[in-house]
């Protein structure tokens, strides 16, 4: 069985994220990493591999990322966690791509990887956080999209997930090949072990350009985007108000006074 995990290299959420002059996300000036929400996708792929492996099955996990040179860091981390090989699509023309273009490149890369059974994505990237690429990939690849799984179960060629909606908890099923996306409720992602870190150094990583995928450069990138950002503005930082220290109930009294003064009581 062949699993492709899509991982994105994103600016660190705990760093000072910002925009470039052309309103694209500053991906050079801010430290980047493997999107934390994609670690859950890697984890679920590894769990499937382990489960099938115990039963004598053979599973290969390919990590796929479309992104700048530094995106190899994200792929490397997934290899350290235990994935088998990496594919990095990097091309200057890709910079500034919107979700439809990104999904186009990812879909072509998945096809080029070849005989695949399962594509696993995170629920959303932590920078753009649109949560649309998995559905777009399913649309483009013409296979079922079983998305936002908080519990994943693979039984033969049926993938069954639990999906926690606002008004109901659903069970959703699809048959391989399919695109799966998993939430951060699906189970803690493992840390790379020392052994994993050493082993990752020898794992294969391929680098593909748009030409390798046969994707026309005019279809991707900032100038081909189907949306345009016209302006970005930093929200003024909040200013800290009064902070009191509770002593023998004084905190509760002050809190109630504050709420009353603001007419919440």
């Amino acid at each position: 069985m062949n699993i492709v995990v899509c991982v994105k290299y994103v600016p660190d959420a705990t760093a000072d994220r910002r925009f470039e002059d052309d309103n694209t996300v500053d991906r050079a000036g801010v430290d980047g990493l493997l999107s934390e929400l994609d670690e859950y996708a890697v984890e679920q792929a590894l769990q499937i591999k382990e489960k099938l492996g115990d039963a004598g099955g053979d599973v290969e996990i390919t990590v796929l990322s479309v992104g700048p040179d530094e995106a190899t860091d994200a792929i490397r981390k997934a290899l350290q966690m235990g994935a088998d090989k990496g594919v990095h699509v990097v091309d200057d023309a890709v910079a500034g791509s919107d979700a439809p273009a990104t999904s186009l490149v990812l879909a072509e890369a998945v096809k080029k990887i070849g005989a695949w059974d399962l594509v696993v994505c995170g629920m959303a990237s932590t920078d753009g956080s649109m949560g649309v690429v998995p559905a777009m990939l399913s649309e483009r690849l013409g296979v079922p999209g079983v998305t936002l799984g908080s519990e994943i179960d693979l039984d033969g060629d049926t993938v069954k997930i639990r999906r926690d909606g606002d008004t109901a908890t659903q069970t959703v099923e699809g048959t391989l090949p399919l695109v799966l996306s998993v939430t951060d409720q699906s189970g803690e992602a493992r840390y790379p072990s020392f052994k994993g870190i050493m082993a990752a150094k020898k794992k294969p990583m391929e680098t593909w350009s748009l030409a390798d995928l046969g994707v026309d450069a005019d279809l991707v990138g900032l100038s081909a985007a189907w949306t345009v950002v016209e302006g970005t503005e930093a929200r003024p930082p909040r200013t800290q108000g009064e902070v009191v220290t509770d002593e023998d109930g004084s905190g509760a009294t002050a809190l109630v006074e504050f709420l009353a003064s603001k007419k919440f009581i």
Partner: protein
Amino acid sequence: MSEVLVLVDAVDGKVTKPTLELLTIARRLGEPSAVVIGSVDAGPLKEYGAAKVYTVDDADIKDYLVAPKAEVLAQLVEKTSPAAVLLPSGGEGKEIAARLAVKTGSGLITDAVDVTAADDGTATTTQSVFAGNFTVQAKVTKGTPIITVKPNSATPEKADGAGTEEEFAATVSDAAKTARITASEPRKASGRPDLSEAAIVVAGGRGTGGDFAQVEAFADSLGAAVGASRAAVDSGWIAHAFQIGQTGKTVSPQLYVANGISGAIQHRAGMQTSKTIVAVNKDEEAPIFELVDFGVVGDLKTVLPTATDEITKRKG
């Protein structure tokens, strides 16, 4: 005037408030046409300005995930050449929008918190990004603007719509009927206000130590909704539906009270646009205090019950 398609969201046949917000926004861009997949009480659609109501029989597709709905909308886009398609932001709305964008070769904007018409009538959106630290103005430049809008992005305003009902016979391919919903278990209502619509939200984190009773009692004294940090959800103390933050709900109430929550960036992402922020935390260094209009450094286990009693007394 062009039509603006609004995908109707309903629970138990009742149109939700975010749908009425979408109809209100749609009127800024053209003439709202509500799209009902399944059956709902269409009264409110007309009352909130729908000129047309397209109804699509869902007998054949309701057991499937979003793909059939995207096909229905794509056929309606083809038929009506609308000025825009508006959908509720949420797992389902965003995925339908994603598929529709690919099918129709259209630009997609998700999680808008405001939509206005530019001088030339085209839709301009406002989004809140990077954990609420930036606002972004954007526009669709290709195809039909497909926009998902967050709850509470507009105040629903009534307007008489003709509400002309028209049955739309969509053809759904077998390929769209592949991800199947095999079971659905409705969640029990808490009896408290809905988290994304509440004027006051009282949230608890790891600092509650697992006992949400004090947080709930305090919330009830204020008539508030209850929310939680991911740490509280991960610990199994409260359901994921109550999580606030990057991977939970975004709330923007008049008042947000964080109890035993440190204020991590991912939590802030879901609450930092609240009008007034209050925190109770025993660590004076907790980053949540950087955001507060009022803070109490203290143990929530003593502060909350005392405050609850005091509020109940005052309300008498």
